């Protein structure tokens, strides 16, 4: 199957070990550098870090598939039949992630508060809701009192307030 001689392919293996190892090190380095571990108070832009790390991971994936799994030496048809279907995931990633973002935004909007981790609900808030009948719309403001009894204090969910 291999189009390389034995000696050549042994070299590819060694190269693979070095390349994958070094890229992993660079990835970790970028992660730590970007968050200010290595140089004090030096931070990288988030998008830049993400871009670097995602592209390096994709290169690692390419290397594993093409050299270790021998895809480079397979017939183009086989390569396409295995790799092209994964492109279907591109739209899945876009659609799913945008959905996740939407849930986040809508939850924040419904709560009508800045996004983040919040204090316990102000007492007046739940008291005012205490007399209203149990409508599903009201649950979010009204029920944490019940919920709190069920949960240990430190487990009280951040999203509820």
């Amino acid at each position, binding site marked *: 199957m291999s189009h390389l001689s034995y000696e050549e392919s042994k070299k590819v293996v060694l190269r693979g070990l070095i390349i994958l190892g070094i890229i992993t090190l660079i990835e970790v380095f970028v992660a730590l550098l970007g968050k200010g571990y290595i140089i004090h108070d030096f931070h990288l832009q988030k998008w830049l870090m993400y871009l670097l790390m995602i592209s390096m991971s994709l290169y690692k994936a390419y290397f594993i598939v093409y050299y270790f799994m021998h895809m480079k030496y397979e017939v183009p048809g086989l390569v396409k039949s295995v790799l092209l*279907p994964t492109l279907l995931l591109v739209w899945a990633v876009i*659609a799913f992630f945008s*959905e996740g973002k*939407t849930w986040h935004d809508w939850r924040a909007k419904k709560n009508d508060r800045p996004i983040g981790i919040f204090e316990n609900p102000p007492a007046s808030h739940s008291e005012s809701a205490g007399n209203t009948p149990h409508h599903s719309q009201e*649950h979010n403001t009204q029920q944490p009192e019940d919920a709190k009894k*069920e949960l240990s204090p430190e487990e009280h*969910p951040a999203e509820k307030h």
Partner: protein
Amino acid sequence: MSAHHNHQDQDVLIEKLGYDDHFHEHHEGDKYQMNFLTKYIFSMDHKIIARQFLFTGIFWAIIGSAMSIIFRLQLGFPDASIAWLKPLLGKWITINDAGMGSLEPEFYYALVTMHGTIIVFFVLTAGLSGTFSNLLIPLQLGARDMASPFLNMLSYWFFFLSSVVMFYSLFLSTGPFSGGWTGYPPLSALPQASIGSGAGMTLWLVSLALFVVSVLLGGMNYITTVLNLRTKGMSLWRMPLTIWAFLVTAILGLLSFPVLFSGFLLLIFDRSMGTSFYLSDIFVNGMALDRIGGSPILYQHIFWFLGHPEVYIIILPAMGIVSEVLSVHARKPIFGYRAMVYSILAIAFLSFIVWAHHMFMAGVNPFISNFFVIFTLIIAVPSAVKVFNWISTLYGGNLRMNTPMLFCIGFVSMFISGGLTGIFLGNSAIDIQQHDTYFVVAHFHIVMGVAAFFGMFAGVYNWFPKMFGRFMNDTLGKIHFWCTMISAYAVFGPMHFLGMAGVPRRYYRFDNFEAFSGFDVMNQFITIAAIFGFMAQLVFVVNFFWSMYKGRKVTEQNPWGSNSLEWTTPIDAGHGNWPGKIPTVQRWAYDYGKDGIEYTQQHVPLREGEEHSSH
């Protein structure tokens, strides 16, 4: 000049032009058939496995459709006593003091759920694609068997196990799962959510997980067989359309079922380990649950990422069968062969990017919905290409109006009627009105339920002689067809009106709602039509089993005058399919009426001066 070859001619042709793979010299092909157990039960012969899939499919089809009759009785005649069903359904029927027996509402939901699960997965996926992929892929490609007969056997037995688990769940004291065939959380994720959400749901999940394994084992086998085991001369563009459809179906299954499997694993964790992948802000009996941060819509996305390709897993094999059978019995080459192939591929691709059109009303971001609307509406293009090609194939043909042909025409009719309403529902603006009404029920029953069944029937009537060496009774077949056709439209036609009027699906009874109380008579009519249609299927079952033993015997190898290779095997083909050499393929599969000759089989070489048909 007669195009008919008798046995002798055919065998001579295979002997002369076929190639010898020394299959029968190894005595390995026949070792599978040593005794009853290895020949009929744990068989590795694709023809036997196909029959196993078919029988199991028929078993489930009877159960699944009988369930629909019971809940149709409830919908059509909510005030009639069904105490007479007590012996069958036991405690699910409560009898009041006046002796009036009525269906438990919980059981109504269980019936609806099981009807969907059984028909979608067990009948139209395993029963349809499992049967005909297994039967036809090796036979039509000129292969001795599947690439891996052993995994093929496992594929059936995983399906069987899955069936056993699901069947067992029907007899639980808390009943089978009752939260809808889609298994949406929280009903599926919280065992305390409803009576069927406990043990019933657990078994449902186990059963479908086993089913996914079966589909994957089968799918890998089908794909590699089509790629690697075609006989000499069988290039991709000479394959019958059935094979193209099965290939693409297998690819769809291979890519979409794993995603469902992932979704199920997450669901299992939510059920039994207390995680919250799909749960957030849940209140049960006024108590807040400690389940925060997930989203039930995540499950819906994952489910429909499988669910939409699943629709095409169901309909594509039917399309392939219809393309082939239609061409054989119209005695004409299929119109636009390449367009058919490309439209199958286009449909397959589109099926992976449209899933959220099932969820327009579930709380999907309207912005992203727009893309899903556009992609969905594009599917109409390849679908229309296929419809036009079928009609053009019929045009000017020398039609044999036998049962398989009738079912093919019925399929085209159903596909058009159901497909048109799909364009309505694919628009999110219209879907806001029609969502979760009987309009949707009518749409998908016609386009993927009845149409896929018609494809399956066409296949069964057409290849019954290959499977059992006998014909099915044509008169009974025609009775079956016309009764089914009429009742299908009688059941699902009026449902469009119900849906337009906003009548919601999944309701137990409607007489409490002033807006829907005017539809009593229509609901009764639908129920009567459904019972009529169910009776018509019994005609098929009787015909099927009667013909297996008493049907007219097949006396010639190629009774339909068909071109594809399965009809070059002996009437009662043993393991390895061909007794001697394997035929080689000299031409495409649709040389009907070429040069004034009625048909020319694929292994017949070009006549003098003849050129390959351009296609």
